[in-house]
Structure formats: structure tokens, C-alpha cells
């Protein structure tokens, strides 16, 4: 299949975005030695990011299997950027894991190979012009992350991986059923064969599809891919998978994989929106989003494990983003896109600090972590800044996107804005309650200095800060275009 795929590729950068991670996955699977492989991993991620950036300059024409448009380019650039910074964080994180013997060299090779395989499958999912190919890519991404979540092979890690595997597979199975239904809806209009699964021809002809079939398909797709987005009540895998795997994986799960699944939902939402007789997908997304937001807000109070705390915060934010896209319209879509970008950057930055914190303290239990700002000023204040950002306080970027979501909701559906604001306030309270214990007070546990990689963290948060203060004009125009595309 890959041969045919390569022939279809219209333009070099698209090839590079897929081939670099795929090739490095193979190379990293056989190369021994930590130093070399960790650097290669960073280098590969960096080159992929550069290739993604070049898409901004020149965009290839859509091919039979792959295409680039205004929507997926946002996800690809954001994804490869977070992939690159996380690989830099992962290098210093993994060094420590090797030192304390949690990872053996053989597992390290496996880890790096899986990391690149994950990058490959996510990029493939985003660039796919064929809904079947997109499904295959998301399935592959699920499998690689399952393997990485279970990599420590502790009781909890295996249980988390098993749970993730079962729930993820069921989700992905439902999504496939939805995909088949979309094909069935498209077949009478487009005709048999390949074209009836190609995204660009689907969206052109969507207005003639049987609305009943599309409605049914969307329910399956929403539940299937929604499981991967981590929407309540389908979220059960998410906190465990975040808490038990290596922290770089938590960062890519929250920063990237959830977005890829959301991207799939958005694509099919566009398909439904193009058919006037089909149900409006908005209300379904709005209600799932609100439920996730409020549910996760309350669940934040009961957390004892620092990584699980931020995993629930991811559920909350994915709920908020789904809500915004469900509301639709230029302003809410714009806010949703902005919020998704800001959340990816902030949440992965938080996981970078949390990774170092849990390494130096030797625990993820919040009750055993106290007074970080005293014992490790850099990590402590970094975490404070990250939490301030994720809680949505000004002047950081998330404040702006949350403000836009809330104000656009107030303008159109004031009643919906009440539970929305309620959920946000609940979550804010929980985050500060926990932060207060962890960051301030008398330090406990190890106060040994930590060899942290600061660059990824600083890069992410300065972007978030910059976006909160000033959004460059071209970026705004670009996001507005995408928002219009989303309908």
C-alpha cells in the first residue's frame, strides 16, 4: 500500500512529513545507545516540523490519498511543533529514567521507535484525503500509544494500557462503522469505488447524500472518535493512560492525539453541515462538551495524583473546545481553534514541568509534594505559571480564547453560557486549591537539584503569553478563514 501511496504524493513536503518519522521509527528501532538515539529523535521531529512549516509557504494540490487545506494545516503545524518540543523534553526525561533503571536500553529503542511511529500515524491521519486511510492512521496511533502507556510494565501501567486498549478499540470500531455508513451514503451519488471515500469529493457532493444515512453515520463517528477525544462519559481510559505512561507520552496524548481525534470529528461535522436535510451536529457536540466540562471540573477536586489532575483538566478543555465547535459560527469556531492551540501548548508545557517534578520527588502523589517554589524555584514557578495559564487567567492566551467562547455563547444562547461559566469556575477553584498545596508552604521530599530542559517549556509558555497579549494579523486572518470553512 505504501508504494501506491508514495506515487500519489503530489509534493515533496507532504512526503517528508510522513517519510521522516516513518524512516526514523525504523532506524531508531535498531540503533543502540541513549545519546545518539535521543538526539536522532529530536532531529527527526525537528525536520518534520520544518517540512510542516514549508506547507505554509506553498501548498500542494489535493491528491487521491493525501491533501492539505486550511483546516488540517493548523493541526499539522501545531502537531509537529509539539512533537518536536516534546522530543527535546523526552531526551532529558528519558536520561533520568535510564539512570534509575525504570527503562532498559531495549525498551528505550522501542520507546523511540514508537514515538516516531506515533508522529507518523498522527500526521497521516491529519493529511489523509480518504476517510478510510484516516481511520487506519488513527487506529495505528491508538496502538502505538497503548504500547507506550504500558512500557513501565508495572501493575498500574498494564492495567491502564489494557483499559485504554479496550476502550480505544471499541471507539475506533464504532468509528469504522460510521465510516462505512458514510461510504454507503456516498455510493449512490458518487458511484462505487475509491472516489466515494475521498474527502474532497465527499464534501462537494454531500448535499445530495441520503440525510438519514449521514445522521446515523455521525452518531457512530461522534461516539467513536469522541472516545478518543476523551469526552465524558467515554473518557475512562484517559486519566489512567496519562498517569501511568512516561510523561512525554502524557504530553503528546494531551497536546496532539486528542486534537487528531477532534479533527476527525470536525471533518464529519463539516460533511453534515454541507447537507441541509441532515441533523445539525451542533447540539450533540455542545451537550457532550458541556457534560465533559462540568464533570471534569468536579472530578478535579478528588484527585490525589498530579498527572491525573492534569489529565482531568484535559478532559475539561477538550469538552470546552468541542462545545465551541458545536456552537459553530465564525466567532465560536475561531475561539475553538485558538483554544485548541493554546491548550495544546499549555498542557504539554505543564506536563514537561510535572515530568521533572515527579522525577525529582520520586512520586506523583500530590500529598508528598510540597513547597516547590521554595525547593525548586524554576519548576515551582513554572508550574504556577502553567496552572495560571490553563485556568484561564489573563494575560495568557487561554484567557483570551475562553473569553471569546463565553462571550460568543452569551450573545447567542445566554442560557448555555451559565453552565459553561459555572464549569470553568469549578475547574479554576480546583486547580488553585491543588496548586496552593503543591507549590507553596514548607518543602517536603527530595530537594536535589534537577537537570531540567527548560527550552521546550519556555518556548511553549512564551507563545501562550504572546498570544494572550497580541495575536499577529496574518494568524487572525488565517484562523478566520478556517473558522468560516468549519461553518
Amino acid at each position, binding site marked *: 500500500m505504501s508504494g501506491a501511496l508514495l506515487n500519489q504524493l503530489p509534493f515533496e513536503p507532504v512526503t517528508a512529513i510522513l517519510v521522516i518519522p516513518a524512516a526514523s521509527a525504523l532506524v531508531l528501532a535498531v540503533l543502540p545507545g541513549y545519546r545518539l538515539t535521543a538526539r536522532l529523535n529530536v532531529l527527526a521531529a525537528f525536520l518534520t516540523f520544518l517540512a510542516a512549516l514549508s506547507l505554509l509557504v506553498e501548498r500542494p494540490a489535493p491528491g487521491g490519498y493525501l491533501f492539505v487545506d486550511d483546516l488540517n494545516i493548523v493541526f499539522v503545524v501545531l502537531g509537529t511543533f509539539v512533537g518536536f518540543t516534546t522530543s527535546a523534553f523526552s531526551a532529558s526525561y528519558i536520561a533520568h529514567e535510564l539512570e534509575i533503571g525504570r527503562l532498559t536500553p531495549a525498551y528505550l529503542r522501542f520507546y523511540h521507535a514508537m514515538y516516531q511511529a506515533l508522529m507518523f500515524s498522527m500526521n497521516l491521519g491529519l493529511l489523509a484525503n*480518504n476517510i478510510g486511510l484516516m*481511520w487506519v492512521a488513527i487506529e495505528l496511533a491508538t496502538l502505538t500509544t497503548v504500547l507506550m502507556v504500558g512500557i513501565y510494565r508495572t501493575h498500574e501501567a498494564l492495567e491502564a494500557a*489494557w483499559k485504554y*486498549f479496550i476502550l480505544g478499540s471499541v471507539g475506533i470500531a464504532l468509528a469504522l462503522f460510521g465510516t*462505512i455508513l458514510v461510504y454507503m451514503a456516498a455510493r449512490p451519488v458518487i458511484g*462505487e469505488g475509491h472516489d466515494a471515500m475521498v474527502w474532497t469529493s465527499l464534501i462537494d457532493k454531500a448535499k445530495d447524500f441520503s440525510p*438519514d444515512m449521514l*445522521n446515523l453515520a455521525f452518531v457512530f463517528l461522534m461516539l467513536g472518535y469522541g472516545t478518543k477525544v476523551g469526552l465524558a462519559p467515554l473518557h475512562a481510559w484517559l486519566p489512567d493512560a496519562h498517569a501511568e505512561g512516561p510523561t512525554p507520552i502524557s504530553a503528546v496524548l494531551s497536546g496532539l492525539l486528542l486534537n487528531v481525534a477532534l479533527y476527525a470529528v470536525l471533518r464529519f461535522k463539516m460533511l453534515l453541515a454541507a447537507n441541509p436535510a441532515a441533523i445539525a451536529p451542533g447540539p450533540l457536540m455542545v451537550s457532550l462538551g458541556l457534560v465533559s466540562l462540568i464533570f471534569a471540573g468536579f472530578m478535579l477536586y478528588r484527585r490525589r495524583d498530579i498527572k491525573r489532575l492534569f489529565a482531568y483538566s484535559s478532559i475539561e478543555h477538550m469538552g470546552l473546545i468541542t462545545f465551541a465547535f458545536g456552537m459553530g459560527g465564525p466567532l465560536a469556531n475561531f475561539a475553538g481553534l485558538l483554544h485548541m492551540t493554546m491548550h495544546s501548548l499549555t498542557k504539554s508545557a505543564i506536563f514537561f514541568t510535572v515530568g521533572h517534578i515527579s522525577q525529582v520527588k520520586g512520586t506523583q502523589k500530590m500529598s508528598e509534594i510540597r513547597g516547590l517554589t521554595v525547593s525548586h524555584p524554576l519548576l515551582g514557578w513554572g508550574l504556577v505559571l502553567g496552572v495560571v495559564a490553563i485556568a484561564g487567567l489573563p494575560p495568557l492566551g487561554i484567557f483570551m480564547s475562553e473569553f471569546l467562547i463565553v462571550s460568543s455563547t452569551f450573545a447567542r444562547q445566554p442560557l448555555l453560557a451559565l453552565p459553561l461559566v459555572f464549569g470553568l469556575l469549578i475547574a479554576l477553584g480546583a486547580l488553585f486549591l491543588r496548586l496552593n498545596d503543591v507549590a507553596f508552604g514548607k518543602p517536603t521530599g527530595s530537594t536535589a537539584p534537577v537537570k531540567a530542559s527548560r527550552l521546550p517549556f519556555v518556548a511553549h509558555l512564551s507563545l501562550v503569553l504572546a498570544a494572550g497579549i497580541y495575536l499577529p494579523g496574518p494568524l487572525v486572518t488565517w484562523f478566520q478563514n478556517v473558522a468560516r470553512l468549519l461553518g
Partner: protein
Amino acid sequence: MDRTAIDVAHMLAGGMVLVSFMLLYQDRMFGLLNVFALHAFVLSLSVAWQAYIQNAPHLFITAFIALVLKAIIIPVALHRVVVRLGIHRTIEIIGGIGPTMLFGIGLVALSMVVMLRATATADPLAREDLAFALSVVLLGLLMMVTRRNAVSQIVGFMSLENGLILAATGAKGMPLVVEISVAFSVLVAFIVIGVFLFRIRERFDTVDVEAIDEARGERL
């Protein structure tokens, strides 16, 4: 398309729904694996029949993969796993057989109502095939939630995937890419599952999912 061809297709697809019901009440490990092999066998027959009546030779490949991999290799491999782990004891079924079967009947009725209504415009072969496929998928889901044992959850999941393949082959002219990748993903999924089972064995003495459900600090 003549009436007999459609009837045979429906008989085979309906046969899968019946075997799915048989899976629901198997309370012995080996019985479960044998019935799963039967499930995959009926699937391969059904796919082969679709290949014949749709004049789509590539579907024979899918049928062949279903026969060799799912009806022979995977059951045999799981059989060995079960023997090696020494778990050929009774499987407990939550809620008992009666309510589970009734619930299953409800699910089949639901999928008939939903699919036949939504696909009123599609051709009769595809729409009834899809309704059967959805029933198999839902029964697979039901099996996964009623079982606590890791091996029987896997069997539930694979019967669910069989339903998906039934749907994909019933959709006339669906590109080959998807069928191969479905088969491929089943293979990969199986490798993953195999690895998991052996790891679970390495660490614990049971593959009961309940038993590895360890209380973390925050579970009350």
C-alpha cells in the same frame, strides 16, 4: 440480482447474528473459543458469497484472511494461551444468561429498526446486510461488557470486528484499502493482545481484569 443470491447472503449474515448469541452464553473457555472459530468461519463464508455475487474477486482475499487467521490461527493460539495460563475454568457472567440474552434480543431489534429505517433508499442487499452487521457489532459490545476475563473480552472484541468486516464487504465496491487494513489491524491488535497477555502472566497469576484492578489512592 436474483432472489436466491440475496437470500443466501442474508442467511449467512443472519447466521453470524445467531453465532453471536451463542457466544453470549458460552461459560467455558474452550467452548467460547470454538464458537468464535465458528463465528469467523460463517464470516468467511459470508464474505466469499459477497465476493461471488458482487463479482469482486478481491473480496475472496478478505474471506481467506478471515478463514485462516480468525477461524484457525487465532483460536488455536488462544487455546494454547488458555492452557498455558491454566484458566480453563468457568467464566462468570454478570447478570446471568437469561437477562443477557434478552438484552441481546433487544439490541438486535434496535439495530433492525434503526438501520432499516435509515437506509430506506439503499439497495435491499446492502441494507439488510448492514442491519445484521450492526447487530453483530452490538452483540460484541454486549459480550465485552458482560465479561470480566481478559481472554473473553478479546473474543468479544474480535466478534465485534467480524461484524465490521461483514458491513464493509456488504457495502458494494468499497475500496480494497479498507478491507486489507481491517484485516491488518486485526493482526496487529492480536499481536498487541498477545503481548499483553504474556506480560500480564509475567507479572500476575491471573488474567482476570477485575483482579488487576488495583485501588489507587484516589479510588474510594
